[in-house]
Every structure is written in C-alpha cells, then in structure tokens.
C-alpha cells in the first residue's frame, strides 16, 4: 500500500512503528525501500554500494523514528539520510567506487529495467531512456541529485530543499541549471561528433 505524503493512515502507521510494532515497520519498509535504493543508485552508480547505502539508511530511519515529526513526509527524510550516508561512506572509503561523489557516475542506463511489451515501440522508447540515463550519469552530483529528486522521484520544491538543505528559493535556479546541463548532454549523445561537453 502506498500512501500520500502525510495521510492519516501514514500518521497511524508511523505511530505504530514508533511503538515498535513489527508489522508497521515492515509495511513502512516495503513502501520506501525500493525508492531509497534507486536514489542511492543514482547517487553512487553502483548496485552493491547502493544496496549497502539503502539498507543502512532504512536501518538509521527506524532507529531515529522517535525523532521523526508527525506531519512530515517520509521520503525526504529518508533521502536526506541516504545523501548524508553516501558522503560518509565515501569519506571512510566504504564505497567500492572511490572517485569523488562530485564526479560523474558509471552508466545508470545499465540499471534500467527491461522495456515493455510492444517490441518496436519499446526499442525506440528504451533507446531514448537509455540515452537519457547515460546523459544523467555524466552530470556532476549537485546537478544529478536535484534532477532525480524532482523529475524522477517527483519531490516538491520544499521537499527538495529539505533533502539538500538549501533555501527553497535556490531550488528553482539549481534545478534549471541541472536541466540545462542534462539537455546539453542528452543532445550531445544524439550527435556526439558535433557537440561538446560541459559538466
């Protein structure tokens, strides 16, 4: 069951989880673990590191649940944990990939799920998706993270500000810079011979 950001059902579920009710914890974990994993993957670009990060983030989420304020959305809280952990893991050399997190990441298009039914349409759409995520992989972390938070995970500007710890007024300008960067990379991958690259 997926609930809206701050529905009464979610409030009740959080309350039960805070009391340590196992079924409530399981339900919360089921609702959020995959998004947590995907965000971690989009940050570090490696499936094993992403799994370690997501697992640790979920664990930290449950251990700090008593500090979680009622009425807040779960996902921004969780994503903020993932982001902090990614930096922490990198600092302590716990990531399998040791380059700076501010650089680009391995090709994210390799982690996409297989395309759907109609083979012809699927191939065209899939080719486009793969090119898009290759372009996302080429963006620096500051652009990549704000872009996926808005355009993939569909977070509001306020929620993005919460995850990235930036003023809400900065979100729009940073997001626009990221979108411009992505558009440039996306078009460059379409015609690699004619376009330069700027990240």
């Amino acid at each position, binding site marked *: 069951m997926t609930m809206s950001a701050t529905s009464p059902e979610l409030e009740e579920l959080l309350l039960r989880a805070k009391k*340590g009710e*196992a079924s409530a*914890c*399981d339900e919360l*974990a*089921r609702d959020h*673990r*995959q998004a947590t*994993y*995907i965000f971690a*993957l989009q940050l570090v670009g490696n*499936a094993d590191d992403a*799994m*370690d990060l997501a*697992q*640790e983030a*979920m*664990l930290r989420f*449950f*251990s700090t649940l008593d500090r979680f304020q009622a009425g807040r959305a779960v996902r921004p809280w969780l994503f903020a944990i993932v982001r902090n952990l990614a930096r922490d893991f990198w600092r302590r050399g716990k990531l399998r990939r040791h380059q700076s997190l501010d650089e680009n990441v391995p090709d994210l298009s390799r*982690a*996409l*799920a297989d395309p759907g039914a109609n083979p012809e349409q699927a191939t065209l*759409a899939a080719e*486009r*998706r793969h090119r*898009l*995520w290759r372009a*996302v992989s080429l963006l620096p972390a500051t652009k990549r993270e704000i*872009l*996926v938070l*808005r*355009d*993939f995970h*569909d977070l509001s*500007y306020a929620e993005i500000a919460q995850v990235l710890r930036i003023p809400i007024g900065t979100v*729009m*300008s940073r*997001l*626009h*810079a990221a*979108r*411009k960067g*992505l*558009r440039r990379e*996306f*078009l460059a991958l379409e015609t690699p011979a004619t376009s330069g690259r700027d990240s």
Partner: protein
Amino acid sequence: MSSDREHNFDEALLSGYLDGMLTQQETQRIRLHLEACASCRQAVDEMRTIREVTMTSTFSTPPDDQWDERPRGNISRLSFGLGWAIVIAWVVGLLGFALGQLWSGPESLTEKLLIFSAISGFALLLLSVLIDRIKRLGSDRYRRIEK
C-alpha cells in the same frame, strides 16, 4: 536558449513554469514570452520531453527477500548484552576459583607454574579473539539488523 539579458527575466523561471511553481503573474509573463521566443519555446519543449522520459523510467531493484532492515528489538538487544555479561562473569569466576584452588593445593611450585602458564596462555588467546570480535563489531554495518 537566449540569455537573461535578452529576456529581462530570470531564465530559471522557465523551470518554474514547467513545474507549475510560478505565480499567476509570472506564468502569464512566461507564456507571453514563449509565444514570441522560438528558442525558449524549443528549450521548454525539450526539457518537458526529457522530464517525461525521466518520469517514465523504471530501474531494476533487488528482490524483497534481500532486504532485512528492521533493527533488533530492545528485548533482543538486552538479552544479548546480558547473556554476554553472564558468560564473561562465569568464565572469570571459574578461572579465579581454579587458580585459587591450584595455588593452595599440594602440587610443587614447578607443577603449579606449568599449569598456571598453560591456563594463562589459553586465557590470553581467548582475550585476543574477544578483542578482535569486539573491534569488528564496531565496524559491522549490519550488527543491529535482525539475522
């Protein structure tokens, strides 16, 4: 896309327009500009298309049975700690008792020293293993996870 100087407005508003985050007045202003500016119209159209492709993407995710992120319960942690404390107290008490008995026994000093050094050796080996285990426990990311 042309520059801010040509537009006389912050270019980032184009993203705000795309996301429906602008005031009515700003939206109207951008709409009027887009009607007149082909390069901005093209940029917004392309960003919208890219956004749609991003939103409709799906990633492979690990199956549910690979996850176990629920922390150990308080009772489980308490009994774990208490269990270790009792075992350690029992081993120390037993060793102390055995050594006391040995020292006050009828054996010669050489025999006492031989037995004492053997027991001390084993105790030191056990202690080193215990220290290693405790150190590893500190860096084990999954120590608080139910297994």
